[in-house]
């Protein structure tokens, strides 16, 4: 057993086994906990991708919200006067 863990291939096999257990058993189990499940469902429902690294990866592109668009136009017009 010790030889397996110290050989390079053995260490890779152990690391791979740990990854498989974490990703295929532990994480799906964690995902079924009520608090986590609620968070995931809320994000899915809102079409949100929390893993987006940049705004272009968001499912909904942030655009200037209409409620501020109108106010900014008014504000700029007042400034011009």
């Amino acid at each position, binding site marked *: 057993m010790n030889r397996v863990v110290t050989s390079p291939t053995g260490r890779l096999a152990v690391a791979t086994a740990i990854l498989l257990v974490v990703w295929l058993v532990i*994480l799906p189990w964690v995902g079924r906990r009520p608090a986590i499940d609620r*968070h995931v469902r809320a994000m899915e429902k809102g079409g949100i*991708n929390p893993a987006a*690294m940049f705004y272009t990866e968001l499912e909904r*592109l*942030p655009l200037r919200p209409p409620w501020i668009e109108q106010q900014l136009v008014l504000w700029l017009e007042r400034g011009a006067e």
Partner: protein
Amino acid sequence: MSHDATISVRRGFHEDSSAIVIGGLLVALALGIGLGSRPADEAGSRKAFPKGWPNPLAATIEKPQTWDTSPAQALVDKKGKPVGMPILLGMAWIVGVIAGGTLLRGRSLAAVLPGAAALALLGGLAYLLAAQKVVNYYNLEYPLWALLVGLLIGNTVGTSRWLEPAVGGEFLIKTGLVVFGAEVLFSRLLELGLPGLLTSWVVTPIVLAATYWLGVYRLGIPSKSLCMVISADLSVCGVSAAIATAAACKAKKEELSLAIGLSLAFTVAMMVAMPPFIRWAGIDPIVGGAWLGGTIDATGAVVAAGEMLGRELDDKRPAEVAATVKMIQNSMIGIIAFAVAVYWAGWVERSSAGPQASLAAEAWERFPKFILGFIAASVVCSFLFTRSPESGLWVDGATLGFTSRLRGWLFCVGFVCMGLQTNFRQLAPYLASGRPLVLYIVGQCLNLALSLAMASLTFGWLFRKAVEP
């Protein structure tokens, strides 16, 4: 052909020039094909095309989709459409970029192809790990898993001889950054008008400079590049800013890995903790949204936190303000990376001994030239984006449909390469001192305080009328 010319052809292009040529060609290809597929009707309507004109290249690239219990779920998108083939084609793009870079640099193509294919597969594996639902919805982004995959292989069986010629993390990340330039649109900087500009532009440079100064001169961290990468990471927009500034100040791969690890750990904590804190503290939701946008590192996590804040109030505005403030910060990456590259080449790396050339000549000698490709792509796409509603949708179609996905693959495989080339022992000194962690925490506290003050001043007082319905 002269002897010198023969040698120069055999040596090929410099890595930076190769990245500019390939990145530039890919952006031009996306724009060219996008223009050729201009919709016949409503070509200028954002309502008809919310993500820009459909770009045919979008069908040639995809990444594994979110999955819950079985990785096979990653091969089908949310609408039930199979994405196995576009994922394979995405890997083929990576092999193509590595092959193109190899040819431009005058190296043997046959020696890199098997390794390039293996790297693309490892990139796919990293994306698959990142797509697990819990991992994905808690913002543990793919660079972390790409590094992990590379580190595991590199520190166990090592990098095989046949794989080694293809392992070029820096080239892939530089090419990814040139392609990334097409997404960094300066025009987005004005999206929220003066309140957004003040919140993003005043606080970000102050936090960046103060954190860098603190790391170098107060905490005495020996590596200036590590201080700069951590500072940009926490003050601008997390991983993407860390990648851009690390390349601009030529940071070591271990330094970038450490900064990304710190950023992702704190992003998860801040995404979960800040919305309840804002409600508990009775902070105005709009001010709270701007605060989230200015402080949480990762873009996706900002939107998630804004949504959590607005959900209980049944108000979409916090998420909208948070996303837009973060988008303004996103758009600052180009300027920040350029400024860091100039500062590094002109001041930090300038030798004090030996014959002194002019500042400009020395700075140009050391300047990372690929940054010019990044800026050029950004300037061209920003110019096209603002020309008309039609051209804005043309650029959006090319970037959202193709270049952003390709950039993701390039970064992902680039990080696999970085992991393969990193020894766990090289990370130990950084972790043992604990000073980078202290720098991150102190810098983030400063960021939290200044951003809250500025968000209160702009969205809570000076321009309050503009944000009230």
